[in-house]
């Protein structure tokens, strides 16, 4: 009965035909419906084939009303701009950008804030006390003058961002479901307003809390009160290394060295086993490619894969054996 195996192999469950194009269309539809993490758009609607009967409608209506009431009671505490400004006291100035273009506001310490349309910021005429505190509603890019003894603090909805001197984006529109902080240069610390040790952490000279490095961002979902740290979608090179662009032209360069170059240029952690990848030479010109495409090509060349986890890039692979 040596053919037993082949017998079993020959039997298979009848398949329902699904053409490659039909499957591709279905996959695309799924991807199109993913809630975009950057522009948290409308909540998705699920298509269900439910034939409503009238009694079911009544039941649904009752459920909806009690549900809405429950939701209203259970709603997490939302903190808005007016509340934050009132909490801080002091004589403050407010700037609102009602135009269609970004507008830059200069603060007394030399920092600049570029307000996006429909955003506003509240700040003191001059920064006194131990901290430089501002309140933001909407979206803005901050470029903060260095002052290690006087941290700069941005209050935006439920998130608090503390920095010593750096540049970063804050996006906290009143109606948005998410609050985001994205770092361009330097490091920032982010806390939730709900943090019980908030005031202590703000006073401490060190950066406690969730610390963001360049090209990392934090997304706070207001409904669930959850913070998620990750990499931004298109990591950019962090400024001054631009003159080193030609450094992305590799000729029989060990791949470990290629990884190091990327780490420096993007200020991103690449996690890999240096001994495994020691002997893999790579020849490629990767100038002008976005980071992920660079990685795609390199990984393909050395038969590795990469995964982005918690703002770091993990590279997995078997390394290189001696060429045949």
């Amino acid at each position, binding site marked *: 009965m040596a*053919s*037993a195996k082949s*017998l079993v192999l020959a039997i*298979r469950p*009848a398949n329902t035909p699904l053409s490659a194009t039909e*499957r591709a269309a279905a996959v695309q539809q799924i*991807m199109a419906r993913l809630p975009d*993490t950057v522009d948290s758009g409308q909540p998705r609607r699920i298509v269900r084939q439910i*034939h409503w*009967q009238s009694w079911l409608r009544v039941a649904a209506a009752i459920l909806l009303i009690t549900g809405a009431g429950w939701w209203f009671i259970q709603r997490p505490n939302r903190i808005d701009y007016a509340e934050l400004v009132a909490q801080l006291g002091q004589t403050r100035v407010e700037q609102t950008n009602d135009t269609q273009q970004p507008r830059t506001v200069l603060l007394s310490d030399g920092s600049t804030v570029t307000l996006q349309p429909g955003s506003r910021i509240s700040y003191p005429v001059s920064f006194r006390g131990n901290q430089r505190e501002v309140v933001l509603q909407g979206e803005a890019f901050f470029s903060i003058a260095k002052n290690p003894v006087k941290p700069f603090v941005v209050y935006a909805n439920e998130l608090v961002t503390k920095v010593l001197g750096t540049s970063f984006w804050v996006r906290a529109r009143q109606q948005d479901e998410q609050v985001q902080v994205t770092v361009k240069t330097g490091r920032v610390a982010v806390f939730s307003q709900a943090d019980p040790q908030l005031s202590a952490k703000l006073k401490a000279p060190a950066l406690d809390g969730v610390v963001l490095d360049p090209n990392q961002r934090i997304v706070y979902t207001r409904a669930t009160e959850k913070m998620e740290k990750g990499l931004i979608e298109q990591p950019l090179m962090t400024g001054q290394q631009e003159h080193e662009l030609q450094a992305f032209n590799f000729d029989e360069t060990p791949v470990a060295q290629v990884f190091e170059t990327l780490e420096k240029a993007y200020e991103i952690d690449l996690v890999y086993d240096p001994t495994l990848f020691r002997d893999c030479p790579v020849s490629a010109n990767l100038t002008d490619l976005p980071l992920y495409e660079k990685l795609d090509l390199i990984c393909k060349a050395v038969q590795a894969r990469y995964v982005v986890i918690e703002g770091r890039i993990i590279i997995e692979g078997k390394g290189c054996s001696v060429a045949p």
Partner: protein
Amino acid sequence: MENRGKPFDDQEEAILWRGSLAGDAQLFENLVDQTYDLLFQYGCKFCRDRDLVKDCIQDVFLEVWEKRQLLNANIPPRPYFLASLRRRLHRVVQYNRMSTFGDYDKIELDFESEFSVEQQFIQLESDQRLATELSYWLNELPKRQKEAVYLRFFHDLSRDEIAEIMDIHPQSVSNLLQTAFKWLKIHWKVGLMLCLRFWYQG
């Protein structure tokens, strides 16, 4: 289409799964693409309405994406997808039946699958006859036994994974499989060899 012959690369799938949970949409797309056929075929065993099956698969994936922070990155994703799809199909079909005043007692969904013989794999005419016979007896199995056999041998899932998918105790899975083999053994003497083979795997 080909679920057999090209086994899933578990390691690759684990990477896709972890990447997806970390929020990488590209890896997620690859994962969806790689598992879509499997889910579609499985879903169609319960429900003839292919658009409804597609809707449910879409809901399964969208839910995975939304709940990705809560999901365990260290479990194999395929059984999880299958279990979610099965639950969702049951729920939707149950809804439809209730809303059209169908009969409330019979909300268990039926697993309908026809096993057939693929000619190109058979060389000898005698083997052809045996295979036809075996597929005939497989088709005669009760529905739940059939589903367990389908998952175990045509999708290579473990006993515990099948238990999770069918939402029953692992021991019940063993019982279903054993009953199925006993039955095959009685009806099909050549099956004895195969049963022994499967026995030690299962």
